[in-house]
């Protein structure tokens, strides 16, 4: 029955030849240009100037707290002791660089139409990583789905961009979309919360917003980039009509439907409502959500993220 299983089971996705050309010389040139533009945008800011909210051994006073046995008495506020006979420990903000975590959804829903959405997401993710590395930020990348979860540990330095490329090329892909599981694992792996950019189509009715919210709960600063194929958002361009059997690319039962013009228009409206609901939920929690249509050049998309999304501060 092995042959039957091979026929029936979905073939595992492997990097294709087109992925080899994903980060070619032209892509690198565009990244350089993008980095110059990004530097002009954030001129005047110091390298690794991002600060965590962690209170520690920094120089800038942050707060007081009650003294407890075992505290370093060097941080005891003697002035308060002398005046009030109340032992308080002075707390200082600790200067620490903020890591950037880029999470790319590599589920099957990102691989429709020849994997255009996934390639676009990887290009955007690579561009973000390049700009981050160029700013001496620590950048980590995770390619995840409901089946796979591959992580490139945080790296620093512009020269590591090729490692990022190699990681993206060789990352396993496929499987169902599971935003919540993906975000939960990213949050668990991250010892230090940071800026987490999630690139996905968020085709997960229940788990899309919950996953982002979980990152936020773990002190991450989540930024959602919803990668959309315009044809998927508006199937009327495909001219779908008649009796068809709809099969979800991520598996599940096939569904016989009769597609009329009215039904296709209803799907378009439903897709718009889904996107609007996702955006509304993110906005209410302070999560920036950007829609990235794959027919828009990726560098334009990255610049728009810089301008509007506050990825770099």
């Amino acid at each position, binding site marked *: 029955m092995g042959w039957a299983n091979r026929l029936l089971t979905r073939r595992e996705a492997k990097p294709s030849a087109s992925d080899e050309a994903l980060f070619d010389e032209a892509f690198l040139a565009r990244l350089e240009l993008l980095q110059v533009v990004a530097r002009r945008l954030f001129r005047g800011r110091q390298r690794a100037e991002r600060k965590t909210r962690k209170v520690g051994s920094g120089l800038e006073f942050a707060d007081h707290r009650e003294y407890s046995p075992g505290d370093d008495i060097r941080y005891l506020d003697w002035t308060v002791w002398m005046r009030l006979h109340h032992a308080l420990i002075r707390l200082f903000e600790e200067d620490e660089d903020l890591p950037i975590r880029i999470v790319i959804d590599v589920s099957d829903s990102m691989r429709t139409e020849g994997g255009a959405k996934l390639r676009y997401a990887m290009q955007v993710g690579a561009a973000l990583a390049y700009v981050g590395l160029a700013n001496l930020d620590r950048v980590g990348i995770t390619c995840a789905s409901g089946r796979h979860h591959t992580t490139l540990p945080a790296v620093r330095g512009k020269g590591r961009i090729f490692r990022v490329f190699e990681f993206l090329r060789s990352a396993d892909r496929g499987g169902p979309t599971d935003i919540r599981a993906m975000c939960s694992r990213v949050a668990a792996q991250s010892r230090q919360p940071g800026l987490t950019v999630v690139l996905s189509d968020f085709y997960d009715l229940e788990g899309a917003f919950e996953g982002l919210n979980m990152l936020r709960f773990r002190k991450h600063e989540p930024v959602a980039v919803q990668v959309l*194929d315009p044809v998927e958002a508006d199937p009327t361009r495909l001219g779908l009509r008649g009796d068809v*059997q709809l099969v*979800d690319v991520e598996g599940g039962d096939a569904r016989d439907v009769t597609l009329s013009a009215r039904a296709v228009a209803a799907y378009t409206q439903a897709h718009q409502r889904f996107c609007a609901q996702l955006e509304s939920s993110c906005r209410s929690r302070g999560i920036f959500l950007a829609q990235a249509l794959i027919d828009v050049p990726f560098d334009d998309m990255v610049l728009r993220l810089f301008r509007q999304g506050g990825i770099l501060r």
Partner: protein
Amino acid sequence: MSFAGWTLAQLWPLFAAGAGAITLLYLLRMRRRRVVVPFAALWERVTRESESRRLWRKLRRLLSWLLQLLVLALVCLSLGDPRPEVWLRDPVSLAVVIDTSASMAGPAPDEPGVTRLDLGRRRAEQALRSLGPADRAVVIEASEQVGVLAPLSGDPSSLVAGLSGVTPRFGEADLPRALALASHAVSERPGPRVLVVTDGALDPAATAALVDCTQGSIPCEVARVGGPSDNVAITAFAARRYPYARDKIEVLTEVRNLGDTPAKVVLEIEADDAPVGTRTLRLEPGQSTREVLGQLDAARSRFEARLAREDGGTQPFGLPHDDVAYAVVPPLTPLDVVLVTDGTNLFLEAALLTLDDHVRLTGISPQDARQGRRPELAEADVVFYDVGADTLPDTLPRAHVVIFDPWRHEASPCPVDKKADVRRPFLTEQDKGHPVLDHVVLKDVNIARGTTFDIVPGDEILVRSLGDPIAVMREGEHATVVFGFDPRQSDLPMRPAFPMMVDNLIRTFEQREAGFVASVPVGAHRELTLADLGLSPEGVTRVRVQGPQGPAGTLPVERGRFRLRALTPGFYAIAAVDGPLAGSSVELAVNQANLHASDLHDRIDDQIQALDLPPATEAAATTDATGPTSLVQGPLWTLVMLVVAGLIALEWVSYHRRVTV
């Protein structure tokens, strides 16, 4: 309904196989196209809203499948070539002979304004519309002339169309020729049959032909269309000059009641459109009367007799065309008379000169006559030879000739041979009844010498001398009258009988020449003489005939005669096309005046098994119900295939309109 093509036993397996194939294809069509989508959950949410329409969609698919099966069933049905039982009978070749004689213009029973011909047309249409697709029919008109209204065809609409333009004629139906044509048209074809539609008012010849047809080898049916037979007709109408008063005219009219009830009619006579007489007549059934209207002015030439109702109503008496009659009196033309004389017989010249009103006299000497130097001889109507002791010419002219003492010399061109010379002949016997000797007494005439004649059969002996003919008239193309004595050698010129005899001779020749063709009947060809109509025939080779209806036509003229077939009553203008008098014209009256044509009684013998004509209303209803639907006459499978094409088009449109998808 039967199948002329495939049988049911062949059609059922075909339909079953086809239905199975269609069902299989339909099921295959139901395997939907797989469309991979990235987010089926959203599609599910959308399509869940149309779940309530799923039953209707299934029903639509079911209808589509049933539509395909219906198309297959119709195709199988067309392969069977279904036909009504009546179409499967043996083909029939039908010849419809419709009587269009004058009597068919008579009224139909119980339907005012409808003629017998209308009923006959309905009956013929009924027969034509009942033809099957393999049947053929021809429609023949039988009037005074026979014609084909619609050639042999299987299309009832074209046959009926040919029948629609038929109108009643003015003469008798020439059924013998029509039936011969009908039999000839269908005898060689399958299922020959002849249907005669007539009112039965036929002449004996037509009735005999009809009886022969019904008893012949080809089935012959007779459909009678009768009606009221009351009719009053003008059966004769003539006008002439008085023989002895040629400046006066008398008119004879014969009116007959051909119906079964007494009739009272008013006879009106017009001359040159002016009324000249009116008579009120009461006629018993079958009674006829002759009315003479005399002493009319000879200046009038066109006469018209008309029957009218006493109350002034316009309703005709039975047939409308026999209520009117026409007559023409030709103009009076003087005779060209040539007298060949040595000038010593002044009595003869004086007798001819007294007839100056209708004689144009020319005198020629015997020498000129012998040498032929005078053209008047060739143009003369009558030539008198009174040469005395002189000799006659070698040949006689082509004219009426009167010769006195032709055998004085041994050599004579006289066509009547000499028998014997007689000294002092006595005129012992004369034919008092002969018009030449009318009111002439030749008793005790003294004659010095004479000659008797050797006659041949046909010669008319005017006077005998002791049994031997001494005055003879020989008929021919031109008459020759010979007297076996010289008037100079007798005392006859001094008697009153001499000028009277000369006048009788001229009048006899005049009456032979012209002026007594008052009218001709419609129908058959009739030979007419131009001279009879008052038109000089000299040099005329063609005449133009203009009837009361229709365009003018030209007819050839041979020796002053031409053949005319007049089909419409009325006045005809006859004009010379060529000759010295080219363009001059005379008139000719043509009348229906035919006793058989006016008699509306059914005269077909009871031995003919005639068809019963359905009531007129039923015939009309049948015609209306059938309608000119030519497609119905074609094979039914063509209609079935048209339905199939329509269903396929419907399915195509519904499919592409996503109605049955």
